[in-house]
């Protein structure tokens, strides 16, 4: 059957990794899917881009630790050029004075004997809990009113509860205790040395506008651990990071190929202006050029605020929902900094892994204090990778690129201009790095700084929040993006959300896109319409 070019069964707005996953699954199920991407290339925040002549680096996301194995298998990403076994990297924490330690007992022992002894057991326990929680990643969130759920939902919830119960009484009680705690207290419970506590705290606050002493940061730690569980139980906690060859772009490129192989059409440089709503239901989209693309179902990979307030428009939504979405916390606090280096100081000469600069919990807390009042951290906490060490193709011969996440650089600035913030976070990141890696500064030949404002402008994420909304207890599961919209269906029939703003949230996991596709197909089957096409 042939349909006009601008007619499809489903439209996906945005070719981020989640959008591509949804598109691929819908196409596999036989729907005629069109993906509309505003940028000239697909990938959203997971792209490889050149920021200085000859220097390439992963745009926003620079580490892969969540891509769900089920998705990789279903879409056969290996065949489309993604090698998931490649470049598993470990984490190293750098301390002032060139000292540092790797995240393994032997190396921790050089900092503290007792912490080295405690570490394996603690990490095993946390990972166990995280994996129990992760069991829900590929499920649609339940409804608090369990009675209203269908039998499948009840079954999944039961399975999940049983999985928790299988942790055993002690672990389950411990989980209920720590789930809402702040990561600083957790670190104090388990470890004695500031260096190890600092590293744990950093893992707890990365991606949040919260400090180590803010409750709910332990949840973020478990959340991140759970996504690593996806790399197999052997991911030994925070060692489960992958640094894809060719940068994060290869991941989304593989997804795009998979989607196209399944029959999806991808149009780049096609910015959607708003969703076309006729008779209170989705009818298609209108591009910024005025062109109409029609389809009975529209899937938004944009963040919840952009989707509800711009693409759908408040006039089509009830005020309660609008105010919930408006109050979603989307204050991006992490800046992305890219360095072109004409060489590496000795301390980083073979730093193939992931480097964390967060020597003490209080250093991070003070960095957060600045952000709290809308200022850029005086001494930001850093996550650094030097991908060119494992993948020379990213930089000219003998030269290197460094990709840095710097916290905190708040999107909500008080009496600081964005330009000032950009300058400050850049300078302060370099000076902080200089303390732990002397000699780096004069190696820098070019530098790109992406503040949350820049990320918002260039990648279309509201607030520059790269999880499409902070991962805190009041914004996860059935509260993501808002109560009664947790099943990927927006209040307007035919409009769906498939981005990180939906359960289970951020990281390059594709789980949100996977779940959204499942719900969309459920509706599609119910409507019988596409069954013929399939």
């Amino acid at each position: 059957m042939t349909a006009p070019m601008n007619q499809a069964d489903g439209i996906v707005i945005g070719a981020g990794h989640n959008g591509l996953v949804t598109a691929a699954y819908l196409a596999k199920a036989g729907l005629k899917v069109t993906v509309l991407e505003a940028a000239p290339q697909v990938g959203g925040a997971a792209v490889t881009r050149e920021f200085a002549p000859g220097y390439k680096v992963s745009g926003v996301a620079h580490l892969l630790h969540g891509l769900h194995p089920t998705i990789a298998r279903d879409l056969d990403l290996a065949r489309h050029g993604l090698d998931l076994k490649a470049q598993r990297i470990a984490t190293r924490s750098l301390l002032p004075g060139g000292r540092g330690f790797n995240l393994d007992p032997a190396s921790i022992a050089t900092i503290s004997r007792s912490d080295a002894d405690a570490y394996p057991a603690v990490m095993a326990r946390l990972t166990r809990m995280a994996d129990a929680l992760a069991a829900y990643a590929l499920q649609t969130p339940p409804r608090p009113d369990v009675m209203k759920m269908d039998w499948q939902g009840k079954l999944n919830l039961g399975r999940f509860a049983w999985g928790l119960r299988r942790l055993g009484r002690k672990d389950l009680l411990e989980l209920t205790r720590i789930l809402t705690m702040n990561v600083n207290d957790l670190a104090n419970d388990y470890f004695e040395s500031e260096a190890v506590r600092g590293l744990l705290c950093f893992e707890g606050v990365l991606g949040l506008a919260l400090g180590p002493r803010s409750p709910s940061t332990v949840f973020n730690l478990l959340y991140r651990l759970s996504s690593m569980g996806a790399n197999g139980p052997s991911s030994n906690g925070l060692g489960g990071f992958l640094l894809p060859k060719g940068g994060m772009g290869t991941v989304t490129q593989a997804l795009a190929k998979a989607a196209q192989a399944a029959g999806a059409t991808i149009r780049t440089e096609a910015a959607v202006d708003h969703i076309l709503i006729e008779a209170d239901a989705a009818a298609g989209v209108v591009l910024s050029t005025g062109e109409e693309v029609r389809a009975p179902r529209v899937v938004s990979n944009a963040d919840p605020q952009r989707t509800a307030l711009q693409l759908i428009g408040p006039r089509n939504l009830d005020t309660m929902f609008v105010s919930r979405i408006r109050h979603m916390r989307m204050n991006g606090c992490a800046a992305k900094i890219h360095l072109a280096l004409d060489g590496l100081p000795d301390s980083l000469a073979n730093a193939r892994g992931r480097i964390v600069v967060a020597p003490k919990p209080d250093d991070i807390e003070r960095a957060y204090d600045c952000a709290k009042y809308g200022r850029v951290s005086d001494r930001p906490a850093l996550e650094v990778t030097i991908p060119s060490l494992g993948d020379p193709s990213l930089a000219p011969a003998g030269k290197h690129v460094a990709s840095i996440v710097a916290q905190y650089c708040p999107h909500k600035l008080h009496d600081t201009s964005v330009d000032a913030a950009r300058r400050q976070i850049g300078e302060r990141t370099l000076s902080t790095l200089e303390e732990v890696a002397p000699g780096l500064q004069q190696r820098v030949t070019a530098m790109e700084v992406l503040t949350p404002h820049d990320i918002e402008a260039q990648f279309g994420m509201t607030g520059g929040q790269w999880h499409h909304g902070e991962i805190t207890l009041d914004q996860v599961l059935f509260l993501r993006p808002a109560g009664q919209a947790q099943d990927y269906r927006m209040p307007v029939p035919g409009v769906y959300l498939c981005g990180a703003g939906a359960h289970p949230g951020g990281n390059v996991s594709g789980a949100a896109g996977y779940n959204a596709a499942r719900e969309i197909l459920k509706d599609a089957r119910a409507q019988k319409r596409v069954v013929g096409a399939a």
Partner: protein
Amino acid sequence: MQQSYDAIIIGGGHNGLTCAAYLAKGGEKDGKNKLKVLVLERREKVGGAAMSEEKYPGFIYSTCSYVCSLLRPEIFRFLDLPKHGLQVIPYDINSAPNPEGEGIIYYNDHDRTRESLRRHSIRDAEAYDEYAMEISRHCRFIKRTLLMTPPDPTQLNPFAQNRINPWGHREDLDGLLRIGREFGRLGERHMYDMIRFWSMSVADFLDQYFETPRWKGLAAASSIIGTALGPYSPGTAYVLLHHYMGEVDGQIGAWGFARGGMGSVSKAIAAAATEAGVEIRTNAEVEKVIVRGGKAVGVALKSGEEIYAKSIVSNADPKRTYLKLIDKGDLDAIDPDIHRYASNYKIRGSSGKLNIALDGLPEFAGLGKEAAYGTIDIGGDFDYIERAFDDYKYGGWSKRPFLDCVIPTTVDPTMSPPGKHFMSVFVQYVPYQLAEGPWTPEMKAQYEKDVLDTIELHAPGFRKLVLHVQCRTPWDIENEVGMTEGNIFHGELTLDQLLFNRPFPGMGQYRGPFDNFYMCGSGTHPGGGVMGAPGANASHEILKDFSRGVVQ
């Protein structure tokens, strides 16, 4: 070893006394097994932190706790406290002075509050209706859980038999179902709001409704009082309820002064207990709990005297109970984790107190005279409170603290000479120990000065009225009352230390790790405040064990 008592209660605080009275009466239902109870109090008089003392000639200070509201009406009625001389005088106003303009006034009467908000912002006045509705929804829900033993979600097998329930374990399942039913009544939309509410920061919660910074600061006050958290910390929204769920003679959310100071609350409960046959011994400090063969059998006093009883109940906070009163060896024999739980238990001194004798009634900036008749919250917007918290985080007292002040003598003439007044100033935040080390007299003087300056700023001419100041840090409070770190709640009221996790995971049902050992203090569900609920709940579990012959 002859047991002269059924139960010994360590500590004569309001919860210990409540528990004692309930045990001696044999519980509300049928007074079948009335117990022979002995209360041992370290100090020369009972009351713990609910205490009235004359620290300056002619002036009665409520030395620690200073207002009354949370005391559960069920307890009030059952112990017939009015008969024993307790009279609570409700007050109507809660206000925030404002040196730069008009202050904010909150009344118990909803409409009056809306009108007074209207003076600052029409939007806030309108939002106040929605806000009040949501708050009262949460309160109604929480209240039902106050006087119940928190169910343990890991003990839901109704057939699982254990020592306490030889015929199968039902309480936890029943309790959970009961809560589930309450939850079900909310309706789906409110379910989302409630779950969200429990994990939110009070700042996020109030920002949904209001715009006036000072009003938001005033409203946030009750969610940070006594906690070592700032308004931007997630989980603080819940603590808000802890100060909204009280009542004074049936008036929900009202607060009142106990006539004669908070000491009269303890006095009344003690009188009720004595009448029920409880024996109270003061100046009897317990040194150790005697444990033999995994059973608590008695206590050893500082004096060397040993007293034996069928059951031992501790009113002391969890840290003191498990780290001081009980030998580590005895704990490890049962379960080595308990000692770790106890040492990791979060019980942070975060608030100090100034008790001030005044020569006259102060006037507060931007407020009328009526303000002095209620609570005066000296603070500002969220950032003001958060900055006060920042000072504390790194081990200093707040240079510009948040202050919760009351002048009970405006309605209670028995506490001061005519025309003179007693003012209680609750100071947030003050650390138990400073970053530089323990408190020195000089630092204490500086801290006192900072507080008085802050008041002067919001009540010009205040200093001239000051006759005498009793200045207390958390350290002083610990040493006087015995509460670890002087934490007024016997432990932070954060979600990880509530319900079945209060005080420790798996010990949330008032039973200690040993047979015949129980806890009845604010360190157990539902937590702090002069509420009496922990004491009453504990008594139910103890009586249950007696009637089942678990305790012989």
